[in-house]
């Protein structure tokens, strides 16, 4: 007898028609004489597909609930009348089913005949040719004629909608199967599509009968993916035709780390299709990962190494060898003159684990100091610190899938539907199923507008009052006796708990006492705390709205306290979940990018750990922490820090207080930038080394759920070298030998030195698809949920931390009466270097200042006005959008466009423990102006000048040839 009972073992390349049932009870049935056993609740269609009996279908696909509209999947069942649809009929014990006989064949042919009578017969020139389910089904049922003819009323002249830059909606090819509508609802959760009209007039409509671009469609691609015909087709497929091979790889945008099939024609990428087998995304995608890959082949790519003596000179194109030896000799000379600690480097959270590991190894072993840092400094360094102090490990505790078992979801300072869209969709799915939602955020984020949302509460706190809020939530839990006493007694350190309990119970931490600080009513806070504490499974999700504050680390510890106090750690459905910004922020931290930690979070002062690295690397290592990024800037301005190697990070745009950063970069004698574009930082560089995109290299990324996923090379590197090879060359030129043939060898070295990666290898990754660390002898297949039995802390106990609320020094006053907070938008990514070079510009081609109608009216501001924004640090100019999403007194902008100068106005304030900048609170004044700021004028002038230097380099190189 054939048996099937593990839904996870399904072949991701096959469509089983309906989703897997998770029931543990099995039923046995017979299909076309084949006996099989499936979980109760499995459809007859899926049960058949699992034994490779493939019933014809059109409206069914296995990432959507069964719908039963096309009737093509009709079957006959012993003892039942008629021909039920196999997609909507659950398999039952003892059923006997026939999927093919003369009656069914005739029925199916009749159905197909009706479909085809209103369908263009341009198959040979149709973009879906070679990938069309309608054509396949016509073949499967043996359709040979259409007796109705094609002359009657039809939809063959229905217009095309080409408004979306990435896909075309050709209504003439639509069979109204509703797969796109259902995908938009069930998979994406946006509900932008609907079937408009009835009967023959039924048609797919976006929004209120708008174009796709004007509707609320977020261009995630789920509808395109679901369409069984050419109705919704990628423009790249229309232009290029069907791909001929594909490679599974990992998206290089946000920390969700979606798996994609890169579908290729030779070395040309035709489209990115979300991989159903991907454990982070289960076949879903967002507009960035799905469509915004054009930057990889953009004309702006740096294709040749370049050098120059001063940043006021044109670039000179040189070969790799000359560029590397120029860089190495500069570094050596600077160290000889100014000492070992006068140079350093920055690893990239966009590069692979292997590349990040090599850069920090280069710095520690070849530079001989610990002056290494990474952009996690400016985003999630407080997560690393805060979670290590309380839970013992610098990482989120769950899988993404865990949310499907949550009953209450608390989102603090995060905007998942924009910044982590694929996970945002999963969150919305759970919210539609009935989980309650609590959002603590100054803005009314889109998650609060989830269609079919059940219980929800918004705690619209003032920027800078997070710690007061989380303390108030915990205060209610403790003083109302809602804590999980068993969990606390068994799993937490008792002394620390007693101290914390006394602290948190103090009246000054009550919701009533902090109402003035947070601006949120005490009653709402009490209600939210009760909902959170009483739900069987409560989970906390947080983002940069937690970390990027002067109290970022305190807030992370406050979140961990709340989870510990309510026993929400160590199982599915609960946990502390930092939503990581960039694709490999988790990985870059794991790989020892921070100046105080060797790979695997081993402190540089730990003689045993350091000894192992010294033995493996053949050098002695410094036992003192090195400079963090802000300290590097200070030291550079003081003339003590003279050279910096930056791989794949744009500190000039992304770091706060731009004037300070620019002063530091200008003070350097040698800045080596390795990037795919001439980014803002590269404008201050002396050596420009071409980077490789994620499509051009092998390696691994680690996402926000600690999932290590393979990145696979699908095309050659534009400049001939993958990023890790460049670091190897630089090390060798500095006299520190490095030799690797493939990134898998670098991973083997990592596994030998970082205990939580001990069990990771490329072979195992290929076998499992992905692995969540810790992965070692104790957890050979990785660790989806952490801290199930104990914490990696003294005696295995969780630690409650005292979380004093200390207001930021950045306060509003008469001169700067508004608070500016910053964030992201769906279509653009971080500094925008990638997405600005794609059609995503259609959605967001400039950064806008959002402000409340009250603040706008007071200043006579209307939508679209130019606004001067002044803080204690600087001045910039942006266009206005009046929006009720803001509270009065709070203004908001994004930082995706360098010319906006959002960071010209952010200050030097930073988190007390980690120096993570306080991007989320800047006191500002806003007024109408008529021209750009001085900084913006200088920016434009320098931009043109530096681009000219680049163009001159190519011209000189061309004339030399």
């Amino acid at each position, binding site marked *: 007898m054939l048996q099937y009972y593990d839904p996870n073992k399904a072949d991701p390349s096959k469509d089983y028609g309906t989703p897997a049932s998770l029931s543990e009870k099995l039923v046995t049935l017979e299909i076309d004489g084949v006996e099989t056993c499936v979980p109760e609740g499995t459809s007859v269609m899926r049960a058949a597909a699992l034994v490779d009996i493939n019933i014809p279908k059109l409206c069914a696909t296995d990432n959507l609930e069964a719908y039963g509209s096309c009737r093509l999947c009709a079957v006959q069942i012993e003892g039942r009348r008629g021909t039920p649809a196999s997609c909507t009929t659950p398999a039952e014990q003892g059923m006997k089913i026939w999927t093919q006989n003369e009656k069914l064949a005739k029925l199916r042919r009749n159905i197909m005949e009706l479909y085809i009578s209103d369908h263009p017969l341009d198959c040979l020139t149709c973009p879906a040719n070679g990938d069309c389910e309608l054509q396949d089904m016509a073949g499967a049922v043996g359709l040979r004629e259409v007796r109705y003819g094609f002359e009657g009323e039809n939809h063959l002249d229905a217009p095309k909608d080409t408004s979306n830059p990435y896909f075309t909606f050709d209504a003439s090819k639509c069979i109204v199967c509703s797969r796109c509508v259902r995908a938009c609802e069930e998979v994406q959760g946006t509900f932008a599509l609907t079937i408009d009209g009835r009967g023959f007039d039924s048609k797919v409509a976006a929004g209120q009968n708008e174009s796709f671009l004007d509707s609320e469609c977020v261009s995630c691609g789920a509808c395109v993916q679901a369409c069984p015909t050419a109705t919704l087709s990628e423009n790249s497929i229309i232009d290029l035709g069907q791909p001929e091979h594909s490679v599974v790889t990992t998206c290089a945008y946000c920390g969700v780390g979606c798996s994609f099939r890169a579908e290729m024609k030779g070395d040309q990428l035709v489209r990115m299709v979300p991989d159903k087998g991907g454990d982070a995304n289960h076949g879903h995608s967002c507009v960035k990962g799905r469509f915004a890959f054009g930057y990889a082949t953009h004309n702006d790519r740096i294709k040749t190494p370049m050098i120059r003596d001063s940043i006021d000179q044109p670039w000179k194109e040189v070969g790799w060898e000359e560029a590397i030896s120029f860089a190495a000799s500069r570094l050596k000379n600077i160290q000889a003159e100014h000492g070992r600690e006068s140079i350093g480097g920055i690893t990239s959270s966009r590069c692979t684990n292997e590349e990040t590991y090599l850069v920090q190894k280069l710095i520690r072993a070849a530079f001989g100091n610990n002056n290494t840092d990474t952009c996690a400094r400016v985003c999630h360094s407080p997560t690393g610190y805060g979670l290590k102090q309380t839970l013992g490990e610098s990482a989120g505790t769950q899988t993404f899938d865990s949310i499907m078992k949550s009953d209450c979801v608390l989102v603090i300072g995060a905007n998942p539907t924009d910044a982590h869209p694929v996970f945002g969709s999963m969150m919305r799915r759970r919210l539609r199923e009935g989980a309650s939602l609590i959002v603590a955020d100054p803005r009314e984020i889109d998650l609060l507008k989830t269609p079919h949302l059940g219980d929800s509460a918004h705690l619209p706190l003032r920027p800078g009052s997070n710690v007061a809020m989380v303390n108030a939530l915990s205060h209610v839990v403790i003083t109302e006796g809602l804590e999980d006493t068993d969990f606390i007694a068994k799993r937490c350190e008792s002394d620390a708990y007693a101290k914390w309990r006394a602290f948190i119970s103090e009246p000054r931490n009550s919701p009533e006492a902090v109402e003035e600080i947070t601006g949120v009513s005490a009653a709402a806070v009490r209600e939210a705390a009760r909902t959170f504490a009483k739900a069987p499974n409560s989970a906390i999700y947080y983002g940069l709205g937690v970390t990027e504050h002067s109290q970022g680390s305190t807030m992370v510890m406050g979140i961990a306290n709340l989870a510990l106090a309510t026993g929400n750690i160590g199982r599915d459905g609960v946990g502390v979940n930092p939503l990581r910004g960039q694709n490999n922020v988790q990985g870059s931290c794991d790989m020892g990018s921070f100046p105080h930690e060797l790979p695997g979070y081993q402190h540089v002062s730990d003689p045993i750990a350091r000894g192992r690295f010294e033995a493996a690397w053949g050098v002695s290592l410094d036992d003192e922490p090195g400079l963090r990024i802000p300290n590097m800037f200070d030291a550079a301005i003081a003339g003590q820090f003279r050279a910096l190697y930056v791989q794949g990070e744009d500190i000039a745009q992304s770091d706060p207080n731009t004037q300070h950063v620019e002063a530091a970069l200008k003070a350097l004698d040698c800045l080596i930038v390795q990037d795919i574009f001439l980014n803002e930082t590269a404008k201050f560089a002396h050596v420009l080394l071409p980077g490789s995109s994620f499509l051009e290299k092998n390696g691994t990324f680690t996402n926000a759920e600690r999932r290590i996923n393979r990145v696979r090379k699908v095309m050659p590197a534009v400049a001939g070298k993958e990023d890790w090879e460049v670091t190897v060359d630089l090390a060798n030129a500095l006299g520190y030998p490095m030799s690797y043939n493939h990134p898998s060898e670098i991973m083997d070295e990592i596994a030998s030195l970082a205990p939580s990666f001990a069990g990771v290898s490329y072979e195992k990754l290929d076998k499992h698809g992905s692995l969540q660390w810790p992965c070692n002898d104790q957890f050979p297949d990785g660790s989806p949920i952490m801290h199930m039995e104990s914490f990696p802390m003294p005696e295995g106990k969780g630690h409650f931390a005292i979380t004093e609320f200390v207001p930021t020094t950045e306060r509003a006053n008469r001169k700067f009466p508004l608070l500016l907070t910053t964030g992201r938008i769906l279509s653009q990514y971080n500094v925008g270097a990638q997405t600005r070079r794609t059609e995503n510009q259609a959605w967001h081609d400039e950064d806008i200042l959002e402000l409340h109608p009250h603040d706008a009216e007071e200043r006579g501001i209307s939508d679209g006005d130019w606004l001067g924004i002044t803080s204690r640090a600087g001045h910039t100019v942006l266009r206005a959008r009046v929006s009720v999403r803001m509270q009065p007194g709070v203004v908001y902008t994004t930082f995706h466009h360098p010319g906006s100068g959002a960071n010209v106005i952010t200050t*030097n304030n930073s988190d007390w423990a980690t120096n993570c900048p306080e991007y989320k609170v800047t006191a500002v004044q806003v007024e109408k102006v008529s021209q750009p700021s001085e900084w913006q004028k200088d920016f434009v002038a320098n931009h043109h000048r530096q681009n000219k230097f680049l163009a001159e380099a190519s011209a000189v190189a061309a004339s030399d040839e």
Partner: protein
Amino acid sequence: MHQTEQEHLIDMINQIAVNNISLGDDSVVADMIAGHVKKFWPRRMKVILNDYVINEGGEHLHPAALLASKKLSKEG
């Protein structure tokens, strides 16, 4: 708005002090600060802090931060 490196470090260590003020008396807070500085601050910053305390008396330091700095110089 511009700060010297020393001014920045004074702000940073004072910030550590006020954020951990509820841990106990100045001596307990100073132990925490000293441990934090030891673990996370680079040699260069420790030297600047030490010079400030030795040469200028550390008058702008929070009392617990001053105590921590003195503990660090003693160990140093």
